[in-house]
């Protein structure tokens, strides 16, 4: 027998869907406002075009690697649009579309992958934590950020994005536990795209869902359709509002799918079949919202063309700006190790400068 409190922490048995794959509302629950739906659509279209452009730039050798998030636009855009300016976003390496949607310069989101530096953007400018490649470590940074906000009396919330693989890492569990104990204003959004590189969910998790992992930590949990932008946006917005109101953390599992391979270096054909991919393409988040908006007369050909044009211009700008040789300054290697370079680093900087001068002479 479960208590009311335990029940409130448990996710529903079936994922919350507000818009069916045909674009028709599936429940009587209220959808986001029309202008929000249109904005979700616009940002998803631009985000997808950005994603395909980045993939193309990788094939051209301009980026060392690019982890595509094609198919996961509803998660990335739906979540980011639920944040206020004072909130923080802690993304993973696969969340470049979320960053672009948050307003980060698209070329700066690619700096890490370009090889020029480890990070291109200023985390404080848009309140976006650094993208990094270890998994789940960002969950603890988000909880710390949220706890600090709580201690300082700020009304900001931290949203942390993680993948299904990251839920197997210890840091996710420590983060959920700390967040639960502290009732920290943090929202965990798991983008469950089915595979941790090649390892499927069946080898990753034995619980009824990843969302079920919240209850053990006293963290309220939701299971949602991650290809439904309305469901993602509504759920994250409510979780953020609850966190801001002092109601504590939420764990959201969004069921979605990574249409492309893990990165350009991966061969997804080795671990999944074409039928599976085709089935998921039928649940495409952009198509789904377009059907809905079109059927309601909110999206006509003119607006569709305008959004497409904006996406093309965005991609062209990214292409032009990334299609240049990056020449980072070697002297900067020593600048950001400590607040002030140590004596040893000053000496090594001098040595490198001599080597470079010698090579040029």
């Amino acid at each position, binding site marked *: 027998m479960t208590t009311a409190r335990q029940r409130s922490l448990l996710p529903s048995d079936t994922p919350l869907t507000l818009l069916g794959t045909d674009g028709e509302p599936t429940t009587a629950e209220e959808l986001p406002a029309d202008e929000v739906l249109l904005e979700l659509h616009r940002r998803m279209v631009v985000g997808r075009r950005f994603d395909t452009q980045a993939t193309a730039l990788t094939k051209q050798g301009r980026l060392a690697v690019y982890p595509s998030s094609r198919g996961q636009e509803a998660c990335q855009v739906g979540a980011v649009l639920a944040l206020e300016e004072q909130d923080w976003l802690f993304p993973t390496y696969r969340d470049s579309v979320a960053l672009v949607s948050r307003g980060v310069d698209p070329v700066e989101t690619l700096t890490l992958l370009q090889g020029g530096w480890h990070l291109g953007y200023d985390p*404080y400018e848009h309140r976006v934590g650094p993208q990094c490649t270890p998994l789940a470590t960002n969950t603890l940074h988000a909880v710390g950020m949220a706890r600090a*906000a709580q201690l300082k009396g700020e009304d900001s919330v931290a949203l942390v994005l993680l993948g299904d693989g990251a839920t197997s890492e210890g840091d996710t569990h420590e983060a959920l536990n700390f967040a639960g104990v502290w009732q920290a204003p943090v929202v965990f959004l798991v983008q469950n795209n089915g595979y941790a590189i090649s390892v499927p969910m069946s080898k990753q998790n034995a619980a009824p869902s990843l969302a079920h992992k919240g209850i053990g930590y006293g963290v309220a949990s939701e299971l949602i359709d991650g290809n439904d932008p309305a469901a993602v946006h509504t759920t994250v917005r409510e979780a953020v509002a609850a966190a801001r109101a002092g109601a504590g953390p939420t764990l959201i599992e969004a069921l979605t799918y990574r249409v492309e391979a893990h990165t350009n270096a991966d061969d997804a054909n080795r671990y999944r079949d074409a039928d599976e991919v085709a089935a998921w393409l039928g649940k495409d988040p952009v198509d789904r919202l377009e059907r809905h908006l079109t059927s309601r007369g909110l999206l006509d050909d003119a607006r569709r063309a305008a959004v497409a044009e904006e996406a093309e211009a965005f991609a062209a700008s990214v292409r032009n700006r990334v299609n240049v040789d990056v020449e980072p300054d070697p002297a900067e290697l020593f600048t950001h190790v400590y607040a002030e370079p140590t*004596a040893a680093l000053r000496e090594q900087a001098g040595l490198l400068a001599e080597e470079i001068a010698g090579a040029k002479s």
Partner: protein
Amino acid sequence: MTTDERMSMAAALNRALADALEADDRVLVFGEDVGPLGGVFRVTDGLAARFGERRVFDTPLAESGIVGTAIGMAMNGLRPVVEMQFDAFAYPAFEQITSHLAKLRNRTRGRVELPVVIRIPYGGGIGGVEHHCDSSEVYYTHTPGLRVVSPGTPEDAYGLLRAAIDSPDPVVFLEPKRRYWAKDAVSLAPADSLDRAVIRRPGRDVTLIAYGPMVATALETAEAATDEGWDVEVVDLRSLSPFDDATVAGSVRRTGRAVVVHEASGFCGYGAEVAARITERCFHHLHAPVLRVTGFDIPYPPPKLEEHHLPGVDRILDAIARLQWDDEVVPARPAGEVQHA
């Protein structure tokens, strides 16, 4: 406004934390058992009662969680001072320390500053059971971006901890737990630098280089060495990273002989770095090879055997005796010659 008081190293650390909490609202103290219990070594005794749960608080038992959340808090403008309770208990936090705490300044090209202090009671000599006595310094000193500091005296415990908390860089603060109860005079002033070694005892014949728990042993050895006619200089490194080449090389150039002492295993140990640096800088001043006196290359032994593992006065004296005192190849240098790196 400083006064000299006699206090134990644990009391000096407690006073440093209290004074830092008093001086700066952004300073937080947290970790496992640091609240009402006051820490298993009572270093945080009374702080929760005095500063309240918002400033000094217990966390779940999870080291990666403690360091990882400290990183997020520091990103949001706070200055966390966290405790790892025991040396080997810090290993679950290793990824957060090396991949994030140490590197975020670098990864973000200086935009993210993480003024976090990680206090780790470390080393042996207290009869502790397994995983309670590791000397883990090289894991941290090998990581660029971290400062690694270890006080050898109550006075340095106070001064260096205050300076560590004030530092804009992350600091791994290694507290020699076997010295927690040793008392000495303490002038309550922050150290003016986190980067400098000090000459604890001047001498002419040989430089003994030590840090943390071995400083007292080195000083004891220096006293005993006078019976053998050796005038031993003792250098207390204090800062393991960055390394103070000037003080160490200056001393060794004067004495011409050097012995490095530490508790940790010798193979790939901190002494190897010190010996290499001395050789690179002082080769033509040396009368003998630089020797290391360290713990054996074994996992930290059980309590009833630790006395055999830990370097003591006799083992260090034996090393000094091996320093080729009869070697006439190197001519004597003028007395009082002082050179700097």
